[in-house]
């Protein structure tokens, strides 16, 4: 029976990202995981970028010129989106953990994600407008 695929195990982590037949709460869970991973990766990239300062002004200026490339700007926009989704969903988790709005957690999630989308659009206009 050790071969059973149903046994709980850390190796099942990919199942976290399977939303089929699940409720909106699973989407919130998945988005929170993905954005958390993305933001953690960004934190390390950010520290690497800051370490360029140690190479002197020229090295840092060269790096700044590189990240003005539209691909890097798009990456920064993704960071903002991830921050909005993770932060706003974190607000939902924090408030429901204190017993606030538990019966309305789905509606709460929809409203907060609408705010995240609006914020994403605002920053897209600001960052990509010629």
């Amino acid at each position, binding site marked *: 029976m050790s071969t059973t695929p149903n046994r*709980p195990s850390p190796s099942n982590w990919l199942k976290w990202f399977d939303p089929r037949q699940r*409720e909106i709460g699973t989407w919130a869970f998945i988005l929170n995981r993905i954005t958390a991973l993305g933001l953690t990766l960004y934190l390390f990239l950010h520290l690497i970028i800051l370490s360029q300062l140690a190479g002197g002004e020229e090295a840092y200026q060269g790096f700044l010129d590189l990240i003005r490339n539209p691909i890097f700007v798009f990456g920064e926009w993704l960071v903002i989106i991830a921050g909005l989704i993770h932060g706003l969903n974190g607000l939902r988790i924090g408030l429901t953990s*204190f017993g606030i709005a538990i019966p309305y*957690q789905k509606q709460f999630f929809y409203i907060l994600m609408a705010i995240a989308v609006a914020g994403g659009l605002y920053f897209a206009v600001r960052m990509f407008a010629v």
Partner: protein
Amino acid sequence: MTNQWTLNLLVYRLKGNGAPHYGSFKIKANPDEYVLDLVERIWAFEDRTLTFAHACHHSTCGACGMRINGVEKLTCITPVHTVAKDGATVKVEPLRNFPVISDLAVDMGSLFRRMEQVGHRPVLELADEPAEPGIMRSQKAEDREIIRLADCIECGLCISACPIATTTPEYLGPAVLAGAQQSGIQNNRKLLALIDSQNGAWRCHSAFECTAVCPSNVEPAWRIMDLRMQVMSERIKNWFRSGK
């Protein structure tokens, strides 16, 4: 004339160390029948080796939990027409997050042991129940004598639906935490320590799937959140006590 649908039931099969696979059974069904009736008919007329658990047929024993088309259901109260249409394929699988014993039967021993560990009471004095949103409890002394069965029937659907239970065998799980909330963690330091541990109330990541699949209105997610507040309250009280 009785309405008859033709359904294709894909039933999860696993025996011993063999490879899991799905058995296909074409079956006539009345749309108002329950899914458990179909599983029983397969066992009675198609394949006597099919293993599954059931007992009461009226959602009291909690034995017949399965996944129907990927969603946890108590099959004895799940009408066919709510999960299928005429000619449809219906996938029947065992609950997740419990080791499969054989086919659709799973070993729920971990759930039962943990329910005992947290002191879950299957029978309650009505006045002792923790308050729930929108429910007023009687304060009359004579009502303390009223007892009733607890809502939780220990069917395990919530644990099957929980994404954290999928990856963390040590996580107590929604039903157990709901049982602890019902027991009350005040004045029970051992239980408080268990609930306040890394595999207790804080491990929940608020997917609310437990509440979505619960067939008995236990609302495990709400109870987990209530436990968190109780834990915080106890921590603050202890902080003041330790300062004296």
